[in-house]
């Protein structure tokens, strides 16, 4: 405890700086007058009195307790990591790195065989594929919409509409994922199957397109929209994911955009720019790093989203190029099979999938946080 207070009570900064606390936190290194030593933002007199008062012991105990609470966050991350590593060891020993890379071939049908709990075949490739493809579809749909909403809310929206609209996007974030899944099963999937997919299939199977662009592998019967139209599948998962990650990306983008100083906007307008030119040159250009960060944060959410995906992705461990085909994602396979795992190896393999998911989302989130933090650092901390 005591080393967190100023070591030399009467040396420098005799008066408490009257900076707003949020600004102290935002600038990162608030009182670094002496290089190399971290001086906490309390006055020297105060810390001296605290260290020699008759309550010093009680204070130290209390501070220690609070420190324990804070350290519990490290403990949680550590415990999760250790448990996942320990429990996934059998599968790691049996399959090694090929768990994520290889597959068997079914002797009867000559089709690739990835995941067969009954016969003890566990290769996680289709889950990686499903997670990646559904998240990418979600990003492709959500990012332009989210940026549009953020631009509208920060730059164009009449003041009356701003409150209700941001409240609506917040509500979108508050809906539980199981309710999204329920809606997707009974509304979105039939809608896709009967209205949207036939149009997409018709476009992507145009003879001209197939003939001229067939070499890209995106068109025709083996293309992005070939095969049977069931409604369920990677596309449905991607669409519901995009609805779920939209509010996250939109609200963070909005935050980053409002962090752009008004002088930038005014400068652009004073030079005769139209509103869109001002947004493009002053706002979007200055906020681009933060926008990328918020998109990555949305990606992190999409990668780990479980229930809604498990309800519409179709749950079959296969890899097809078509977005209409059934798939499986890393989170959905755990949700579906974990509680009724047939063997210890099955459970261990599922935990290894979970470990991979944990590591990937930690990486993605850390990147995103650093990016968003780099942009909003200069502005006062905001209450969500």
């Amino acid at each position: 405890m005591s080393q967190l207070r100023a070591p030399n009570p009467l040396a420098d900064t005799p008066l408490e700086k009257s900076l707003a606390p949020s600004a102290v936190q935002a600038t990162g290194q608030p009182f670094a007058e002496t290089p190399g030593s971290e001086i906490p933002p309390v006055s020297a007199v105060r810390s001296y009195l605290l260290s020699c008062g008759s309550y010093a012991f009680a204070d130290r105990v209390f501070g220690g307790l609070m420190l324990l609470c804070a350290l519990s966050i490290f403990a949680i991350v550590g415990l999760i990591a250790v448990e996942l590593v320990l429990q996934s060891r059998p599968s790691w020993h049996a399959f090694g790195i090929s768990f994520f890379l290889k597959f068997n071939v079914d002797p009867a049908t000559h089709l690739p065989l990835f995941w067969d709990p009954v016969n003890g075949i566990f290769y996680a490739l289709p889950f990686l594929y499903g997670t990646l493809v559904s998240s990418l579809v979600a990003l492709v749909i959500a990012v332009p919409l989210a940026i549009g909403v953020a631009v509208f809310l920060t730059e164009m929206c009449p003041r009356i509409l701003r409150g209700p609209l941001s409240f609506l996007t917040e509500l979108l974030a508050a809906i539980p994922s199981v309710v999204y899944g329920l809606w997707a099963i009974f509304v979105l999937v039939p809608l896709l199957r009967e209205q949207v997919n036939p149009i997409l299939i018709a476009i992507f199977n145009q003879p001209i397109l197939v003939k001229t662009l067939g070499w890209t592998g995106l068109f025709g019967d083996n293309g992005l929209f070939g095969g049977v139209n069931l409604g369920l599948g990677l596309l449905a998962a991607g669409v519901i994911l995009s609805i779920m990650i939209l509010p996250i990306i939109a609200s963070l983008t909005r935050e980053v955009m409002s962090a752009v100083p008004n002088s930038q906007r005014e400068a652009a307008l004073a030079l005769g720019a139209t509103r869109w030119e001002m947004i493009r040159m002053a706002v979007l250009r200055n906020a681009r790093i933060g926008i990328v960060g918020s998109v990555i944060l949305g990606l992190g959410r999409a990668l780990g989203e479980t229930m809604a995906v498990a309800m519409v992705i179709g749950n079959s461990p296969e890899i097809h190029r078509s977005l209409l085909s059934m798939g499986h994602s890393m989170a959905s396979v755990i949700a579906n099979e974990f509680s009724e795992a047939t063997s210890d190896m099955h459970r261990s393999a599922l935990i290894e999938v979970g470990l991979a998911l944990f590591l990937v989302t930690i990486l993605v989130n850390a990147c995103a946080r650093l990016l968003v933090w780099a942009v909003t650092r200069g502005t006062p901390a905001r209450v969500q």
Partner: protein
Amino acid sequence: MNPQNTRRTRSAWRTLVDHTATGLAILATLLVVAPLIAIFGYLVYKGASSLNLAFFTQIPKPEGEVGGGMANAIVGSAVVLAVASFFGIPIGIGGGIYLAEFGRGTRLANAVRFTADVLNGVPSIVMGIAAFSLIVVPMHHYSALAGGVALGIMMIPTVTRTTEEMLLMVPNSVREAALGLGVPNWRSVLSITLKTASPGVITGCMLAFARVAGETAPLLFTALGNQFWSVSMSREISALPLQIYNYAISPYDDQHRQAWAGSLVLITLIVLAVSLVRFVTSRGILKGAS
């Protein structure tokens, strides 16, 4: 072409681009609002027509039979959430106090803050696996306790970060006034700083609560679900989101009906919590703290 003309066409072109961009932004907003209204409208329509008294008072009927309710799931959710809040909120507030009062500006605090943000993004299903291997495996039993622990872990980072931000809004003069009167530091933190910031801290706790109230994935293999009455800590217990999930993927129409009703109840609770929070924060009750 004379320069006057070029300038005019350029200007017209720029105006056109400006209007197009405005139109696209409005279109995007409409496209985002549309699914929300569709989801809410459909939910209210389906849910309200399926809600009845039996839903709140009876336990589920055997598969395929019509009728029954989710009384046990509602009580189960309350039990699991109580366990989660019981240790998620105190630890979270403690962490927030450390970040705001003791570790301000230190490297350790920055690391804790960053870890909390990252932990916030860890998928809930991974929390479920962790709670499974920490509690279910040693106890050899799925239990309400394990479900509560999984949800509680998810509450900690959210509560920590909001508590910290709220405490940082309390002016230093308030702290110094307390210390100047000879109040010990721990007492000043608890009775002065935390109390001043309490509306905001409660807001943060309710947001965290609302967030985990709808979580299904961590409960799938910790609380597991139960078709009968149970309030025991060491037994399987039902929860509202779990029951919704089980009914949504079942083949029976009557269970689909109940899934809609359950979703309406769940969402009403969550929206109430969120709007209450918004009401409290917008009414400026927090102004005393800033």
